[in-house]
């Protein structure tokens, strides 16, 4: 998909239909938005404690489940202290 060309080999943040957030390096994608992420980590947000990082490793995500793909600014990401960030998890996609 042309719109994703610039994201290849970059750190991306994927938001899924159920509201989960997965960050990893984009290794491949196709026209169906299927993705391959390496060294991926799930970021679990909660309102009473900081963001929990759950390592997932190499992941293939089927395009059907994807709501959004964001290109992460690695400098900014490195400067944020996620153990201090508290928020409700993102809501699931409702029709």
């Amino acid at each position, binding site marked *: *998909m*042309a*719109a*994703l060309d*610039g*994201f290849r080999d970059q750190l991306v*943040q994927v*938001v899924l*239909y159920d*509201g989960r*957030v997965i960050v990893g390096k984009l290794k491949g994608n196709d026209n169906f*938005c299927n993705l391959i992420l390496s060294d991926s980590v799930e*970021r679990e*947000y909660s309102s009473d404690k900081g963001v929990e990082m759950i390592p997932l490793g190499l992941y293939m995500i089927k*395009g059907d489940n*994807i*709501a*959004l*793909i*964001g*290109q*992460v*600014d*690695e400098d*900014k*990401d490195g400067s*944020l202290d996620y153990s201090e*960030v508290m*928020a*409700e998890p*993102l*809501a*699931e*996609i*409702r*029709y």
Partner: protein
Amino acid sequence: MLIFSFFKTLTDQVITVELKNDLCITGTLKSVDQFLNIRLDGIRVEDPERHPHMLAVKNVFIRGSVVRYVRMAARAVDTTLLEDATRREAHNTGK
């Protein structure tokens, strides 16, 4: 097809996309495709206190199927032209 063409005319304008998980993202429209997938650059989230999930994200690719609304400046749209085009399309597809 008409709405796809309409979104193409908004390229390089600042628009706000509201997703079906209530997240509102403002950014510069960089590209749109036939599924109305949207690529936004230089994004910011409407309520970063409630949604800090996108703090380190600069550019996003939004899947067309998760978009609830797109808000744009009134001056970005030639409503008379759009009305004519929609009537013409309705007339042509009705046959």
